[in-house]
């Protein structure tokens, strides 16, 4: 007997008991209970008559270092991390979005060097992007960028490099991260995977402002109009 048939029988049984109560019991409160049983049983039967679709979870993605052979493999894993463990898509959009609470990342891999992206992920307060998508003075974005390599997100170095590979690939740029930079379990992080303490400012035309600390980043084709404030 299938689950649906079993539940239908239970629903019919509940309605039957309700009908029997209404037919044979005169006391008011039990009659109200009988009435409620008929209503609930009918509701269950109606719910069983519509298409029965369950939502099954997809297979869990694992970061398998051994499976990475090419830079494209890294980008593919980076894409999955971007939309899952990395939680990047909670705030960032890829393309203009009214609801995005942080800068649009479309074409970001073409605008910023890998060192700068790495620094943005691991030292997000080094340069602050401000929102220029409105009239008047720039504002902070509603959400504050977390340190992506620390809790609660806590991406590993391998995972961060994969995300950078994805951002570069998504922007149509050659991927500058190499699979050789991936640290195998139990091995130290390759020297090339480490990033200088202070990454160069965005490679876009930057205009110096007050006391040389405020720089305006490239407005960019994707509408990333932002202000970066060094060392704020």
């Amino acid at each position, binding site marked *: 007997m299938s*689950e649906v048939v079993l539940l239908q029988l239970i629903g019919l049984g509940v309605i039957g008991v309700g009908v029997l109560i209404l037919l044979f019991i005169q006391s008011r*409160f039990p009659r*109200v209970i009988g*009435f409620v049983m008929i*209503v609930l049983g009918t509701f269950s039967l109606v719910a069983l008559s519509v*298409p029965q679709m*369950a939502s099954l979870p997809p297979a869990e993605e694992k970061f398998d270092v051994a499976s990475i052979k090419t830079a494209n493999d890294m980008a593919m894993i980076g894409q999955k991390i971007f939309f899952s463990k990395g939680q990047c898509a909670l705030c960032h959009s890829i393309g203009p979005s009214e609801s995005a609470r942080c800068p649009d990342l479309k074409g970001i891999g073409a605008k910023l060097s890998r060192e700068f992206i790495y620094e943005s992920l691991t030292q997000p307060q080094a340069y602050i992007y401000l929102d220029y998508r409105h009239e008047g003075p720039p504002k902070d974005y509603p959400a504050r960028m977390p340190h992506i390599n*620390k809790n*609660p997100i806590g991406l590993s170095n391998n995972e961060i490099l994969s995300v950078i590979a994805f951002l570069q690939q998504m922007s149509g740029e050659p991927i500058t991260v190499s699979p050789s930079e991936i640290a195998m379990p139990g091995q130290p992080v390759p020297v090339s995977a480490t990033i200088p303490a202070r990454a160069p400012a965005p490679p876009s035309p930057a205009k110096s402002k007050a006391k040389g600390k405020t720089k305006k980043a490239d407005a960019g084709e994707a509408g990333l109009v932002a202000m970066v404030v060094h060392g704020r």
Partner: protein
Amino acid sequence: MRNHEASRGRVRGWLDAWGLSVVGLALLAGLLGFPVSGWAEDAASASAAVSYRDIPQLGGSRNIIWVIAQLHLLLAGFVLGVPIFAWLCEIVGWKTGEKRYDKLAKEFTKLLTSSYATTALFGGILLFMLIGFYPKLMTYLTDVFFPSFLVYCALFLLETVTLYLYWYGWDVMLEGRAKVFHLFLGFLLNVFAFFIMIIPNSWATFQASPVVIAEGSSLARAWAATWNPTWWPVNVHRLIANVVLGGFICGAYAGVRYLSAKSAEEREHYDWMGYVGNFIGVFGMLPLPFAGYWLMREVYQYNQQMGITLMGGFLSWLFILQAMLIGVLFLGANYYFWLGITYRIPGAEMKYRRPIMAMLVILLLCLGVWMTPHSLVASLEEARKLGGTHHPLLGVFGVMSAKMTVANLMILVTFMSFIMYWRAGKEETATWAKVAKALVGGLFGVAAIVIIVLGVWGYFVPAIVRINYFSVAQVLIVLFVLLTVTPLTALLMKTARTTTEMVWGRMPPRAGYALVLNAVMVILLMTLMGYARSSSRVHWHIYGVMRDSSPYAYSPALGYAAAFMSLNTFIFCMLVAFIFWVATMGDKAKAGHGATPAMAGGSQELDTHK
């Protein structure tokens, strides 16, 4: 021998007095003991942090949490809705001088003492279960929200103190400034209750629409997580829904008591109480769809995929069930109004027969459109004959533009019923009455036409235009009608002459069943939408942040879920019946000795009692 009998009597007396408590405690210990035994099993093998624990023998951790959480939420809705209901009644009694409202408010406040305890009991069980079954998730949530846990505890203390003062101070703060202070206490009670509601809302909405938590102080992190995109839409939606629940449960209680009333006086009283409950329920129900619309809009804004899962994915059929329940609720509420016009106002039956029939037809047509599915359940052969899964004629009603239109029309019709009932048996005496009545009629007519035009136009514009402008305009038009016609009618009625006195206690028994039906529909709707909210997260505990990797990560199909919804609704109804029974038990005993009856009420005689 005598000693032996005396001792047996004492034991029997002790059992009578404490038996229920002992059984309750044993059950509680048993319930709490099950997860404890589960922990014991795990403890031996657990070397690392445990993510999940389970008791498959009891139906699995997910189902246990489902029942307990749903009951806790329904009880919480009840204990937050009742103070709003009671406070509104107290204000009406204070402003109009009608003591029956004050007594009604007092009697419902009395329910709070026992219902608070039951709600807290289920809250405690839920907390233990969550810590036991989902330790990893609870650790994460505690890490994020710990400061708000402390605020929550503090609010409970404040709420309890205020409730004690409000309840025990009722009879000593009856007049003058003391009464004003008492009303202020009622206001405070509701303010604290509101915050008690919105804090757990932040935990639940964070699970559905999390924001990234940056580093910072615990307070800053909790604050950032609290202000997630769906927090306020859910707060507003639940606040209104609690008023609706409180009103319709009062109505259902009155309905049951009306059915079993033995004297004309009792019938009058519970008929009046049913009217008040239904009135407040409908009053809250009218703006509720707007709050729901705002919530769905925010869900789409936050994550389009989540919105699609709800409205167009595996949960899409849920909204057909929702349409059915809301439709029955609208019909039930209107039916009760119509019965009131027919039976309580002598001579009104013939006068209102035609408009009632017209409104019934409109409501049924609207319900038919609302329940039209987007795609039909059809076999391959049938679909081939139809030329797709859309019905060639009715398929046009399966889209949101049609559903938004009929939902707004149903609200308008219900509001019209309410206005009709309000004006029945009265004759306006104001000099400007004709102009006002023409204006009211014109407003209803123009509003209905504009809503339909916007609905049809909605088919020919991009979805974003329809969602952002047309649907919002439809909602604003209905709100405008509600907000202009209500005060206008109130002004008209202020100077109106009563031509036919309303006669209480003459409603047929089916009116009592209609009130019970309305309450069951509201409870079922709450359980249905709770399932929708939870299932929209699909296989995530916290959407996009913490994946559910337990064996229960799937969302069950509607039929299975509906069985749990029905079970939860039934248990909740029985719990509320028990609470009402316990709360009025002492009054019945007193009434037997010539004191005030259980519930204060509608007759003049009862009004003279203190």
